[in-house]
């Protein structure tokens, strides 16, 4: 898909502003940032976001911005689709709905009726909810691990709104809070001046160039992501590498082997906090919703198994992936620091 075709308006040509969101600082920042955009005031963000008859992939060609006030719940328990990476108090929140990128395998296109991006501007409400949850976390000896980039790529947004910065700074004020910030972006520079903290895990999803080109539309190339990883490590950040999802196709082993070799040559695995590995998986409902739109990607026309409502690769294929990763990372990182989704 060519997003930048001339006939389409640039992303964020329109900002839909929920009336209640007017008074927030993040709103003003955003409106300043997009001062040339057409601002349309709306009573409720769902008026735009939940409209029937939207076409997710067509909207991706000209995404709009919606500024809204989030209502409770502000924080959610981790799902079986997410990898907790060994953190027992694992939660996620949604400061932003939707993503600047457009990965073929992403569940967001099945989860949301709209490709437009919702920014929730009431940061303080979300922070207070985190503090309340910290107090009642099930494992009181462990910190609460909060994934803030689950329904978006928050770091990719950093040049637009410094929300990753806000959350990192906030985490420093909460002794029992850790953050996971998962990204495919190269936006380390905008946060590079922040003093690194062990409370924050910066996680980069890395894929072979072929997968990036064919399935991770609008994302930065592998080499640039690796540079961002290197910079983060150099600055003392904890870094997680995510091979998730590993996409299986004819010749995938060679491409992933090349990827691992490239990483080994550029990054010392001693400096990597851990690794997560997963395969294509998606809730049945989301999968069906996407399939119904007859997407371009061949991923949605292949045969999968359905395990308790999750569409995924067969157990045997998943095993092949596990063995492949274990064999090829053996000696580079202890096995207990590789987490598999299954």
């Amino acid at each position, binding site marked *: 898909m060519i997003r930048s*075709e*001339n*006939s*389409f*308006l640039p992303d964020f*040509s*329109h900002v*839909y502003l929920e009336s209640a969101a007017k008074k927030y600082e993040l709103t003003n920042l955003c409106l300043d940032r997009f001062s040339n955009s*057409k601002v*349309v005031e*709306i*009573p409720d963000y769902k*008026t*735009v976001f939940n*409209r*029937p*008859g*939207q*076409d997710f*992939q*067509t*909207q991706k*060609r*000209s995404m709009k911005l919606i500024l809204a006030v989030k209502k409770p719940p502000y924080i959610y328990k981790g799902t079986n689709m997410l990898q907790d990476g060994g953190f027992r108090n694992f939660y996620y929140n949604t400061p932003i709905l939707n993503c600047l990128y457009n990965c073929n395998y992403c569940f967001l296109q099945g989860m949301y009726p709209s490709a437009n991006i919702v920014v929730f501007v009431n940061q303080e409400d979300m922070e207070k909810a985190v503090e309340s949850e910290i107090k009642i976390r099930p494992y009181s000896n462990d910190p609460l691990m909060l994934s803030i980039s689950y329904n978006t790529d928050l770091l990719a947004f950093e040049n637009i709104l410094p929300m990753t910065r806000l959350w990192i700074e906030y985490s420093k004020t909460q002794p029992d809070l850790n953050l996971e910030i998962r990204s495919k972006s190269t936006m380390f520079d905008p946060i590079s001046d922040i003093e690194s903290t062990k409370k924050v895990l910066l996680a980069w999803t890395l894929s072979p160039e072929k997968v990036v080109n064919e399935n991770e539309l609008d994302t930065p190339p592998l080499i640039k992501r690796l540079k961002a990883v290197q910079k983060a490590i150099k600055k003392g950040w904890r870094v997680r590498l995510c091979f998730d999802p590993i996409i299986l196709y004819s010749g995938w082993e060679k491409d992933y082997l090349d990827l691992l070799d490239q990483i080994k040559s550029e990054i010392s695995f001693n400096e990597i906090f851990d690794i997560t590995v997963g395969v294509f998986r998606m809730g049945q409902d989301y999968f069906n919703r996407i399939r119904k*739109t*007859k*997407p*371009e990607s*061949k991923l949605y*026309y*292949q*045969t999968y198994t359905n395990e308790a409502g999750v569409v995924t690769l067969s157990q045997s294929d998943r095993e092949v992936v596990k063995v492949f990763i274990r064999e090829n990372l053996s000696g580079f990182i202890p096995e207990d620091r590789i987490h598999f989704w299954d």
Partner: protein
Amino acid sequence: MHFLILTALKAEALPIIEVFGLRKNSKTHLYQNNNISLLITGVGRDKTKERLQNLHQVYSNFDQTIVANVGIAGGNPDQTKIGELYRVNAIFDEKTKQCFIPDILCKHPLIELSLTTVTNSVNNNGDHFTGLVDMEGSVIFQQMSRHVSIHRLIFLKLVSDHMDIDDRQRIIDVTGLIAKQVDLIKSILLSLDHHVLTNNVILSDKEFDIIQRGTAQLSLTETQVHQLMEWTENYVKLTGNNLEKLAPFFIKKSNSKKERNQIFDSIREFFSA
């Protein structure tokens, strides 16, 4: 791409009929020429709703259609100029208090304004309304968004007055106003003639027809039809092959459930292979 233009008045329609060379189909009451159709809905929410509710009886192919509501509107005197054409980016229904947002994804040369749909015409205090005022917009959005994706719903409004004319003295040259902007209207519509705005399809009309005829020949159940469509789409998408090899399965008419299911199993095996 097909275009379905909706106007409330014949006076609004006339210049459009002329510029696109449309001819009235006496059975459907649609004015048509190739891929352009026009329907006169009548004025006000009730007439418009009634006409559009029955539209599917005379118009299909919504997957490939852009619906454009073109017509006159009252304009806020501080925001609009009489005779100027505007693109609507939000519609508020004064009666139901509902808000409808069309998706504006493609570039266009017009100033955007919001539109309020009212029940009775507004003859004074027009500056109470922001942007534009009409009597059909919200109903058109509601009715037509059931048929087409909302990025294919376009509202073009030409300001005929500043809501300061008494109905009894109202003499507006509607046709003349539209005629002055009809070339612009035409160019805006034709700029949207873009295949990416239509719904995605995997099977061509011919392939779809093969499956339709096959399912009738075999008297497949609804579930089997659904499965067959899915397998066929997977097959076409993953292999890039046409459906030639499927033809032999559809030659013979099935005479019993057992026979139907046997042929269906063979089709399943074909796709699995």
